[in-house]
């Protein structure tokens, strides 16, 4: 399936995510759980990578650290030129607001708000103001994600696939430098999975959106530009870029 690179241009000089020897140890009672044992990874601007690996190998931990939700035990983390390692909790929250969009397996929409309400809330948190956001940009994204007629539906009135598309729209609505998706198709049937993967592919192609996606599904991984293999808190192979057909 993997074919040699047909040069889709990545600016490797412009690294969006860089980790250096990241280690993360959880303390559970008296036991240390080594979730990450020294992860070094680079993701270039405009790249779409998939992270694969067995359950418990540290994928989510890596993603949470990359999104500033978790502080690593040691190692360095640089996001879009900003060294996150030394940042305070408040500074990391701030970085997340400006540069990160999360997509979760469980969608994590606000159940009381409509699809549009969910997007607007994200826009307001981003803009730190009560303005109307960017209606034009929002419309383009909603069109790409085929959500125009679902705007006024609450999450419970939407299918799983539709909910995940709303969640993706929310993650990209503020044009973050980096989208982090943790098993975005994990709760979807194969048909909806395909739609969601098409959307991510489309966002990467059309907006040059940088995406790091965790997945268990080899077919999903195959849609990315590059596949990173993890095992036991380490990166087995950082993959070779390829293009999607």
């Amino acid at each position, binding site marked *: 399936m993997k074919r040699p690179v047909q040069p889709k241009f990545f600016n490797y000089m412009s690294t969006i995510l860089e980790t250096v020897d990241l280690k993360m140890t959880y303390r559970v009672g008296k036991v240390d759980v080594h979730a990450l044992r020294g992860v070094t990874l680079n993701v270039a601007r405009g790249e779409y990578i998939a992270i694969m690996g067995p359950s418990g190998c540290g994928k989510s931990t890596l993603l949470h650290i990359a999104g500033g939700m978790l502080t690593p035990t040691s190692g360095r983390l640089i996001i879009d030129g900003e060294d996150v390692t030394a940042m305070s909790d408040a500074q990391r929250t701030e970085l997340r607001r400006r540069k990160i969009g999360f997509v979760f397996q469980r969608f994590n929409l*606000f159940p009381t*708000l409509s699809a549009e309400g969910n997007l607007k809330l994200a826009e307001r948190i981003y803009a730190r103001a009560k303005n109307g956001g960017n209606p034009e940009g929002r419309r383009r994204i909603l069109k790409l994600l085929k959500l125009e007629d679902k705007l006024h539906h609450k999450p419970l009135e939407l299918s799983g696939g539709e909910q995940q598309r709303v969640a993706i729209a929310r993650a990209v609505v503020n044009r973050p430098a980096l989208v982090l998706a943790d098993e975005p198709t994990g709760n979807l049937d194969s048909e909806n999975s395909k739609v969601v993967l098409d959307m991510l592919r489309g966002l990467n192609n059309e907006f040059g959106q940088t995406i790091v996606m965790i997945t268990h599904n080899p077919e999903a991984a195959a849609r990315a530009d590059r596949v990173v293999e993890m095992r036991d808190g380490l990166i087995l192979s950082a993959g070779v870029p390829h293009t999607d057909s």
Partner: protein
Amino acid sequence: MDSLSVANLKQRPLRTAVSMAGVSLGVVLVVLMGGLTRGMTRDAAGRQSNVDAEIRFLPGGEISITTSNPLMLSARYAGAIVNGVKPAPENPGVEPKPPVAAVAAATPVGQYVQTGAGAIGFEMVDGIDYASFKDVTSIKIVQGRPLGSGGDEQTAHEAIVDRFYAEKNLGLDNKPIRIGSKIKVLDQPFTVAGVYEPPMLARVKIPLKTMQELFGGADNCSFVMVKLKDREPVDRVIETINDYYPGNNVIPTSEIPALYSQGLFAVDVLLDVVVGLSAVISGLVILLAMFTTITERTREIGILKSLGASKRLIVTIIEREAALISAMGVVLGFVLSAIGRYSIQSSTRLIVDLDIKWLLIGGLIGMAGGVIGAFYPAIRAANLDPVEALSYE
């Protein structure tokens, strides 16, 4: 983000309603208790000054309206002020005094104040000498006949009442009061001889003589009301009276309402307690409501954090929701207070003023209680670990 607060409130209508009711309870408590105190004080003080007599002559010492024996002042001062004191050969200790020229009339009044239940209601009875009382006030008998002197069997147990009392009270036979009804005054049955207008001093008046009998027989009163001739300067006359009869309190009637509302019983303390209690009620209700809310919405707080919401923003969102509930609770409290006032006034003799001061205090207490009560839950929410919050079931 207000849409988030509003959506959350709509999501749990019962909890929202219960929280609002809790806040409104505190507001109602403050508004009605404050209003009741004010209403009763204003009413009583108003009636105290609702007489034509410009000057009140009271016993010396601290001015008090609650004394166990209310008859502390010789009733003869009334006659002395009007007519002067003649030399008495049999009693050379009495110093002769001329009449106070500016005085038109004076009357001795006995006044008995009985604290009612809860220190809020209080009952007052006047003992009057109708013959001179009518000269210093504008009292008019609108039904029945004037009060007798009390000097004989026939009139000793007679009373006159004002129209408000007649309309709001039942006689001992549990029927509305009319002429001839029996009412209980100072634990004794009295017959209503007449109804008077306008309201002044106590609503129930009995003969001063009878009151004196009940309190030991001395020819005493509580104070003397003094009416001046036309256009006589009050200050100057007070000076003269003080000159002739030193050691007493002589004050303008216009100062009585102020005196009255100063430290009336323990009411001020009671009100402070009510205000404090109300704040605590509002605070606890909102604390509990917001606490269950944030526990229930832990994952949503995790989502907010994943979107980059700062701690301050999360506190703001939760506080805004609490403020919204509190504001609705305050409005509900005002509405309930108005209803409460209506039902209190139509079913009891109590008077409640919906007074701007107590509405403000009630509203403020409701809001402050809510906002402070929400603070701890808000801080807790803001300090949640984002990853743990997101994995909360």
